[in-house]
């Protein structure tokens, strides 16, 4: 039995499930707001929520996509008892999560938080080229027009930022000095690019797509500001073996066995690593390049 930890509305999960049906593989899908109780029946651990009930021994593989297993933790009247029981419940919960992660899996619930700053440091350590970057709370040492700023958080959508619209924090060029200091912000050298590369990594295999975003003013800084009228040209791409090798080392170091990775191929021929997202979207490159990555995931599970 396959355990899928995902969001109820995750479209990507539906696409993988289509292939699980084709392969006739059985699965349980856990939603992000499900709360589980840990029960023991005949010495076997049973996880029970309002939607699902399964023995962890019956799970053969786990795909962590979104959300995760969450537990209904009990509270106790006596403060001291509550403290002990809190620890006891944590031990059980932690055991369940670790047991599930010890099975065949794609990414881990316990390792789902990315830290872009640490990832960049590890990328440098494995020998990947990374555009020079720094944190600052002022623009005194910013090379205007040649420096970008972007979010270090995973979530880049700001609800109700405008009267009628939500906002999104795309990568932007810093072109003006600021008079006041601001919250510590991530700055990075702007690389003149030949094209961008979006990769999907799964257990040592890498599928890549070149995105020719540099010829369009709208997409040249951030290709996610899509030009629907005249979309960027996207084509299959094969990374040089040494970059592939370094990606494998980096992903092993980060303890991710799946993820989306972004690169820039610069005009001087270098491959600059930008970031890794273990739960990134991959259906786009799967469709455009005909990689059927959703099939690869279903096949692995």
């Amino acid at each position, binding site marked *: 039995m396959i355990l899928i930890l995902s969001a*109820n*509305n995750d479209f990507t999960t*539906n696409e993988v*499930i289509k292939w699980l049906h084709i392969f006739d593989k059985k699965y349980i899908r856990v939603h992000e707001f499900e709360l589980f109780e840990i029960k023991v029946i005949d010495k076997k651990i049973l996880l029970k929520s309002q939607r699902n009930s399964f023995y962890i021994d019956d799970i053969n593989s786990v795909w962590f996509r979104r959300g995760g297993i969450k537990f209904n933790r009990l509270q106790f009247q006596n403060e001291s008892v509550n403290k002990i029981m809190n620890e006891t419940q944590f031990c059980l919960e932690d055991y369940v999560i670790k047991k599930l992660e010890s099975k065949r899996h794609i990414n881990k619930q316990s390792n789902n938080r990315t830290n872009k700053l640490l990832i960049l440091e590890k990328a440098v350590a494995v020998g990947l080229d990374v555009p020079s970057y720094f944190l600052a709370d002022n623009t005194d040492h910013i090379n205007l027009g040649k420096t970008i700023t972007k979010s270090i958080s995973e979530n880049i959508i*700001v609800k109700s*930022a405008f009267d009628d*619209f939500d906002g999104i924090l795309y990568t932007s060029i810093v072109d003006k000095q600021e008079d006041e200091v*601001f919250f510590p*912000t*991530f700055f990075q050298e702007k690389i003149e690019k030949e094209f961008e590369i979006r990769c999907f990594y799964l257990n040592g295999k890498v599928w890549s797509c070149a995105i020719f975003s540099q010829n369009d003013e709208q997409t040249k800084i951030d290709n996610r500001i899509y030009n629907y009228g005249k979309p960027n040209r996207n084509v299959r791409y094969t990374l040089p073996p040494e970059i592939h090798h370094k990606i494998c080392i980096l992903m092993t170091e980060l303890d991710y066995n799946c993820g989306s990775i972004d690169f820039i191929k610069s005009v001087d021929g270098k491959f600059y690593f930008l970031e890794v997202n273990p739960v990134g979207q991959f259906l786009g490159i799967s469709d455009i390049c005909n990689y059927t990555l959703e099939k690869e995931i279903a096949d692995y599970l």
Partner: protein
Amino acid sequence: MENKIRSEERNKLPLNFKYLNKLGSKKSKELNKKICYVKCEKFQTDFMTRVTPFKAFTRML
């Protein structure tokens, strides 16, 4: 259009908030309202998107 987030917050924000973009368009918002999801037991989700095939049936014959 200036976003209202920076002026509303008492604490300082990172500089990239100055470059906040609008997400989507009025048209896409209206389209989103029209997107129909169905509950689907087979896929264990309440959000199965109802999509129309993008290839003409004649091409599938």
